[in-house]
């Protein structure tokens, strides 16, 4: 996507130089404010790395062609937008001087088309918001592909606009756009995948190198404590809140008995039954899920909470018992 000098007129080149210089000046100020002397050598070496890595041909599966790394997105993900932008300018200047990749006059356009979109849009509008709540492989892949595709589309569109404004080609602007955008969509996808592969490797090997990533919490998203707290709240809500809407109609068993025997509660006679009923009534804290001698809504609700807690405690107790016996069996 490097533009040659022949593709722009001085007015367009000067305008783009001014835009790129403004972004460059702002970036210099931001990097100075960061006051990290270590960053300058890192920027230099990373610039050289991008240059070297762009020379490696990555085979695209299923095709006979190959792609290369997307420098702007990678540098932003490692150095941040400002340092990344300055590094990209250095890379573009050296590419232009040593390898005639883009011209001296068109350097302002190339900085805007490749470095500005890659670093500012890619880092601030795509990478940073996506990594705000922690990093994951999926997010890295998503951000890299989205970043490369969007920034390359913007860059390709800018190339069309700059060439069109320079009145260089007789090609109608619609045809030019139709020729440029789809090919850069494919390039963006491939470059995004390669960038994602490198950034995923960095995340595995040295996650601290990634920029704009929120620090990982020690506990996972669904930690044990977190899950217990959520379950506790849910228990209170369901037991206490939803039990208010519990049906007053008989349950399935009671309904069947009513149909068969004509009553839901069978009358049992005999001294044994009477004694058992007496014991139950004496020990029951909440007879029929309510306070003794209370039929109020608050009684129903409270009994729901307590019942739920009892169930939880019983379950937890059973689990511990199970664990205890399992441990003992292992030792044996």
């Amino acid at each position, binding site marked *: 996507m*490097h533009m*040659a*000098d*022949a*593709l722009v*007129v*001085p007015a367009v*080149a000067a305008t783009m130089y001014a835009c790129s210089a403004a972004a*460059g000046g702002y970036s*210099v100020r931001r*990097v*100075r404010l960061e*006051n990290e*002397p270590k960053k*300058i*050598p*890192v920027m*230099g*070496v*990373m*610039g*050289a*790395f991008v*240059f*070297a*890595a762009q*020379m*490696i*041909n*990555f*085979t*695209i599966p299923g095709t*006979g062609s*190959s792609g290369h790394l997307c420098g702007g997105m990678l540098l932003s993900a490692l150095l941040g937008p400002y340092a990344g932008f*300055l*590094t990209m300018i*250095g890379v573009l*200047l*050296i590419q232009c*001087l040593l*390898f*005639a990749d883009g*011209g*001296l*006059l068109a350097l302002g356009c190339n900085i805007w088309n490749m470095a500005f979109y890659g670093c500012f849009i890619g880092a601030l509008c795509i990478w940073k918001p996506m990594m705000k709540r922690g990093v994951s492989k999926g997010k890295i892949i998503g951000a890299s592909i989205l970043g490369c595709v969007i920034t390359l589309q913007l860059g390709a569109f800018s190339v069309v606009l700059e*060439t069109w404004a320079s*009145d*260089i*080609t*007789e*090609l*109608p602007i619609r045809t030019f756009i139709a020729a440029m955008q789809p090919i850069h969509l494919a390039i963006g996808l491939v470059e995004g*995948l390669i960038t994602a*592969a*490198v*950034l*995923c*490797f*960095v995340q595995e*090997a040295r996650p601290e190198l990634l920029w704009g990533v929120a620090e990982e919490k020690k506990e996972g998203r669904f930690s044990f404590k977190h899950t217990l707290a959520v379950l506790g709240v849910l228990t209170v809500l369901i037991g206490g809140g939803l039990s208010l809407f519990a049906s007053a109609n008989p349950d399935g068993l009671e309904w069947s008995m009513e149909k068969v025997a004509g009553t839901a509660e069978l009358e049992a006679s005999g001294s044994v039954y009477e004694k058992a009923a007496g014991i139950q009534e004496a020990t029951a804290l909440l007879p029929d899920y309510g306070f003794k001698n209370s039929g109020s809504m608050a009684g129903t609700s409270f009994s729901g909470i307590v019942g739920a807690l009892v169930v939880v405690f019983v379950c937890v107790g059973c689990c511990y018992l199970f664990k205890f016996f399992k441990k003992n069996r292992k030792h044996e």
Partner: protein
Amino acid sequence: MSKINQAIYEIRSLDTLANENRWVNRLHPLVKLWVTILYIGITVSFPKYNLSGLLVMAVYPVILFVVGEISFKDSVRRLWLVLPLVCVVGIFNPLFDKDTVAYFGSLAVSGGVISMITLMLKGIFTVLAGYLLIASTTIEKICYALRLLHLPKLFVTQILLIYRYLSVLLAEANRMTQAYALRAPGQKGVHFKVWGSLAGQLLLRSMDRAEELYESMCLRGYQGEFYYGSRIKLRAADMGYLSAWTAAFLVLRFFPVIDVIGRIFVG
């Protein structure tokens, strides 16, 4: 020769050329930078149908190649890189712009053909001008000129660092890809399964190198400030070179020199 090897070779050959002791090399870097940018600016400013005016701009590269003893052969490769891109944009001009604008004898030439040739010539001249600058000026001297233009020190320093570490990391990338190619015979490029690990390893090594570089810079007294060597003085020869070319470019651009010369011969 592999792509990386080719790049290393090119950097070294340009470095050797720029370090030679020719009169062009001894000129002040700021003067050469200014003349190059002015030449490129004026060349691309010619209207798309002004082929005759543009042709005369060939004097700058021709004179510098001959008098500056710079080999034209080495610059041809750069032309091969740029010309296809320029051609792709210009090739459609004859299809869309069919109005006749000139006659060569009885042959009618359309505006599209003229604008296509103009575009290609602009591409050739501007690439040659860039090559003449880098073949006679080292990157260090170009950075010095950029500092004289008040570009921020931070920016110029990192350009120098990129250039310094470029050949080191290219050599490292070359070793890695060579080792990979030896283990994957007959395979073109790097397989997608190792995309991340191959470039990632190079990245981690580069980061470690940056760490070592920073520590060694600190040991030499680096505290966030860079100090440059001695000043390059502007001599009379530099001023003469600058004014001669500036005047020549302006005359060639704004006066119909080629018409005047043509009339002398044709009448």
